């Protein structure tokens, strides 16, 4: 398991993306898959920072763990912000997405893009920590 710590502030989004992009490239993900994973981690990191820490009046870090094995690139975010399970959140449905812009809810697209973008997404709450788990399938001939 590789591990890297980022402060839980919006300034970290750019370095988190760059870090995950490198992991993706090392894992041999193609351009599209790299972008989807990068987008997913950006969305979840944003939520941890804004809702989990800032809005809750807390501060803390995001620990980014990663592992390449079994033809999978696994990236795990660990944070001590308020407990939040994105997989239980009501996602917008097709009907919402077909509404004219001016009638749409602002928001709700981040978790949707995350779940639709990665190959697997899991959430756990372990040792007082949120664990957001992003998994991309890797073509083993490319690593």
């Amino acid at each position, binding site marked *: 398991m590789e591990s890297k710590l980022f402060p839980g502030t*919006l*300034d970290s*989004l*750019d370095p988190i*993306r760059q870090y995950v992009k490198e992991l993706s490239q090392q894992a041999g993900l193609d*351009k*599209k898959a790299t*972008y989807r994973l*990068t*987008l997913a981690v*950006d*969305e979840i990191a*944003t939520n941890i920072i*804004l809702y989990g820490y800032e809005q809750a009046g807390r501060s803390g870090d995001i620990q980014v763990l990663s592992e390449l094995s079994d033809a999978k690139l696994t990236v795990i975010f660990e944070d001590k912000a308020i407990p939040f399970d994105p997989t239980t959140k009501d996602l917008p449905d*097709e009907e*919402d*997405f*077909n*509404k*004219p*812009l*001016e009638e*749409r809810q*602002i*928001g709700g*697209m*981040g978790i*949707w*893009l995350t779940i*639709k*973008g990665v190959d697997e997404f899991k959430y756990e709450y372990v040792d007082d920590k949120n664990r957001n788990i992003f998994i991309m399938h890797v073509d083993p001939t490319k690593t």
Partner: protein
Amino acid sequence: MSFFITSEVKKVAIMTLSGELDSLSSREFQAEIEKVAAESPKDLVLLVENLSFMSSAGLRVLIFSKQKIGPDLSIYIVKPQPVIVETLEKTGLHHSVNIVDEYSF
């Protein structure tokens, strides 16, 4: 044969975005939208050829634009990179904006 003429003066807000648009930089994008909103443009033209990343925070600002400037606002997204088109399509926003290679009328 006779002669006919009609005329209209149209205000177009043109923004050039480059680099990465995340929830931090989307604040600058939103500030620009608020600035041009004061002039009530009819078209919002976003030149995004060199925009390499856009998260849902960018999409939020698009929706905000329409709510701030009004439902008659037409949004043009000029030359988006394929990954950004994918994001627009996944969230249904491609129904509400014009994805084009060139802004014209």
